[in-house]
Each structure stands twice: as C-alpha cells, then as structure tokens.
C-alpha cells in the first residue's frame, strides 16, 4: 500500500510515467490521495484551500434538493407607490426603486444642493404631497450617501434646514393657489392699467 502511495507522491513530483496515471484514474483511493497531496501543498504555499471534499459538496446538494420549497414573499421595493390610474405614476416608480426606507420615499424631495453636505432623511416628516422629478441638475436625496460631516450637530442642522425647506415649499404651493383666487383677473387688471397713465413698468402686458 505504502508503495502505491509513494508512487502517487512521486507522480505529484512529476517523476513517474503514463502507467501510473492510468492507475490513478482507475483507483478511487489513489484519487483521494492525489487530492490530499495537492491540498497540502497548496496550503503550505499559502494558497486558498478548500477543505471540503467532493463528498461533502455532494451530500449538501442532496440535502438541499430534499428540502421543501418555501414560498417567501418578495421584499417590497417600496410601499409608497401611490396607486393612481393611468400612466401618471410612471415617473415616481422609477425613483422609488432607489429608496431604501419605505416611509422615506414618499416624502423625499430633490435635495437642495448645499455646498459639501448631503443630509440623510430618515424620519417620516409630515408629508408634503410633493414628488421628486427626474431630469434636474440638483441631485436626488441619496439614501446611500453618507454625510460628509458625521457630527451629530451638523446632521441635526441639516435636518432642520430640510424641515424649513419643506415648510417653505408648502407655503409656495398654498400661496400660489390663494393668489390665483385673489389676484385681479385679466380684464379688470387691463382696465386698471388703462386708467393708470403714469406707470414705470417695463413689462406692460399686451393690450
């Protein structure tokens, strides 16, 4: 026996001939020996060695096949996609793919580009009913980005700034609605301007 194994090690060292190779191919014991030799020499050299034998791999795959399949629910990409009929939701869904937190995606605003700082929004602040719009030079609030300055104070500042920004944005929308109601309509305004001879404006409406 030892004689046989000695010949394997000799073969590893490239010292024997074709007959030995044929013998190796036929004898499983010799094949194991061959594998162990090479594993050892790899380990000695410092290469990565897989210590799992082929038997182990075979037994694992057999065990897997025997397991019953579990129908795991797909993780929801984002829960914030609003169901709206028609194609109007398409834009929002594209952005939603990059959201991590489901609650954040609905309130994410395309961030104000502050010099050197991007804040990570993680609290569900009051919803502004706004939507990020693609195709803008300002970068979207990226939830993967780590803030440049990690101190708690600057994060709180950034968060406060974001709250302020949102409040201001809301104010703009509401004021726009209000002004559409209370500003003088065209025909009345035109009449006023016709009466007002002294005007310093440079952008008179066409009459």
């Amino acid at each position, binding site marked *: 026996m030892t004689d046989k194994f000695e010949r394997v090690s000799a073969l590893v060292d490239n010292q024997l001939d074709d007959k030995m190779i044929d013998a190796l191919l036929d004898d499983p014991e010799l094949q194991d020996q061959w594998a162990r030799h090479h594993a050892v020499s790899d380990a000695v050299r410092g290469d990565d060695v897989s210590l799992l034998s082929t038997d182990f791999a075979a037994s694992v795959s057999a065990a897997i096949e025997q397991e019953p399949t579990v129908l795991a629910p797909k993780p929801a990409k984002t829960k914030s996609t609003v169901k709206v009929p028609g194609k109007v939701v398409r834009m929002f869904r594209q952005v939603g793919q990059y959201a991590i937190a489901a609650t954040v995606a609905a309130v994410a605003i395309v961030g104000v580009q502050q010099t050197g700082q991007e804040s990570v929004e993680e609290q569900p602040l009051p919803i502004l009913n706004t939507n*990020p719009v693609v195709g803008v030079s300002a970068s979207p609030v990226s939830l993967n980005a780590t803030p440049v300055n990690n101190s708690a104070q600057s994060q709180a500042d950034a968060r406060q700034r974001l709250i302020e920004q949102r*409040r201001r944005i809301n104010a703009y929308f509401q004021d726009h609605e209000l002004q559409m109601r209370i500003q003088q309509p065209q025909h009345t305004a035109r009449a006023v301007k016709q009466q007002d001879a002294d005007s310093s404006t440079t952008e008179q409406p066409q009459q």
Partner: protein
Amino acid sequence: MQIVQRLNSLNNNPISLQRLAAAAFSFLILTLSFATQADQGNSASAESWLKRMGQTFKAANYSLSVIRVNQQHFEPIAIEHGIVDGEPLVYVNYLNGPEREILHRGDTVTYFQHDEPPYSVAGQRAVGPIPRAFINNIDVLKTSYRFVLGGRNRVMGRAAQLIRIEPKEADRYAIWVWLDAEHGMLLRADLVAPNGEPLEHVQIVSMAYSESPSPIVQQLSQVTLPAPVPLMESEQVSGQGRVRWVAGYVPSGFELVGRDRHKLGATNGLVDYQLYSDGISSVSVYVGSAVDGQPGQSLVSKGATHLMTVAKDGVEVAVVGQLPPETITRIVESVHPVVTKNAQPGKAP
C-alpha cells in the same frame, strides 16, 4: 343661370317656386358645409364644439359630481349650478379632507375654509376644477392654442367627441376634452404633457339637469355673504423705493394678471409677487430673500404643477405653475432686477 331661367319661367306658379327656392337654398348650405369641412384641421368645427360647451355651463340648472385625479391625490368635487332671479350661482364643494367650499354668486366669489373666516373677492375667476376660459370665453385661448378635432370615444357611458386644445409651442401643457356628442357638455378633461402623457384628469362622473334650481342653490342664493375684500391696486404697492423684479421671459400669450408684495404664509418674509395667466395655466413668480443664504436650487412637483426655487446671492426666486419643468426653468432664469424710476438704488428685499 339655369336656376334663374327656371325661376323666370315659373313666375305664375308660386308653389313650385318655393320648392325650387328651398332646393337652391339647401344646395347652398350643402356646398358651404363641404367647404367648412375642408378647413385645415377642422378648427372651425372644433371651436364650435368648445363654444357649445361654454353654453352648456352657463345655461340651466345642474348638479355635477366631478373627480380630479393627479399623481398626488384623488379629489371628489361636487358642483351645483343654478340661475336664481336671472343671477347665475355656482357652488363648488371639495368633498375630501378639510372643508373647502367656493360660492360664486353674480359678481362675487366667496371662499369658505375650515381654518379661516370666509372672505369674498369681486370679479369672475376660475371656480373649481374647470378652467374659467371654458365657461366664459374660449377666444382667449386662440392666441396660444390650436383647437383640433379628434375622434369619438365612449366616456361616462355616452358617445363623446374628443377636442384637443394644443399649444402652438411645446412650452406648455395641452388640454384634451371629451364633450358629449349629443348635448355638448364636458365629460372629461385631461392635462397632457408635450410627450402625450396625461398628467391630470378631471372627469364628470354624474350629472343631473333640472328645470328649476336645486334646494342647495336656492338656499345659497339667500345667504348673506361677506363683502368683497378691497384689493390693493397692485401698481401702487410694489416698486416703491426698491428694486423691482421682472420676469424677462414668460411664454407667449401669458399676461400679467396681478403683482404685489405680500407675506408668504404666516411665518415667512415678504416676497415680490407676480401672477401670469394665459387663460388655462397660471404661473406665479416669487422673489424674496433667501432663507439661510446658501445657494441651491430644487424642483418639486405636485401632479402637473411644478415649483422651482433657485437661491443665489441672498435672493430666492421661486416659480410655481402648471407648466412643463423646462418652461418653469426658463422663467426662473430670466428673472432679474430692474431699478424703477421712483426707487432708490439698493438691494432686493
């Protein structure tokens, strides 16, 4: 000529003369109608459809249930219209969320909201989800829009004619309206982006016409309303002793509707304000001092309405409107200061 000869020969026979005249007349009408159909894009008939739609809004007493849908939310609205003592009355009630009602009676519009006392303003304005131009005068749209006759669809269980109100330039949104084929009233309206994507829908989901005004309308015609708030003459308010801000570019057909200086919301500072409209879309331009002095810009959307703010040099310019983002960007970038005659040179507010 043949007709003239035949007429001459039938001098003594008045009955067949009439018949001949009728035939000639109908032949003339037929020729004219063929000529009309040969119009490019059938714009004349599209316009007549729209005018008829305007008529259906003003005549009669009706109750409508309307749904307005955009990306953000879904808004059911109830509209009551009636004519009491010759005076039209329109009542608009937003059914979801905090109470919001609008009453348009004669020449006054009164707004009721849950969080403030009701107030009135004088004049004719857009009331509810239907653009004022549809009801009053479709001609204001002719400068910037084309009317295109579309195909027939089924809307609300009825045959409907599609009319597309397309802008002449792609710098604003189009409106596609579906009108009842038989009576001509509005069944559905979509606000459509230049690429054909619908952004907002307004659909009438039920309507009821009646001979006499509904009880709600009759009740509302008796209600005492607050007196109209006197609106400041905007020319007097703005530009006094300060730098005036001007939007160098507005899309063609947009006219300045109003301009003043007021406080933005309850807690924010003063802003210079201008409102432009082309009959369908309105756009507001705000100029105020930047909140924290940091430069930046942002674009936020609420359905078809976009808000762009740019902060630079301590000044924040914001433009809000129902226009494509590219147009809003152009307007924002064109806003610049102008020193008025009466003003002392100085920095913006």
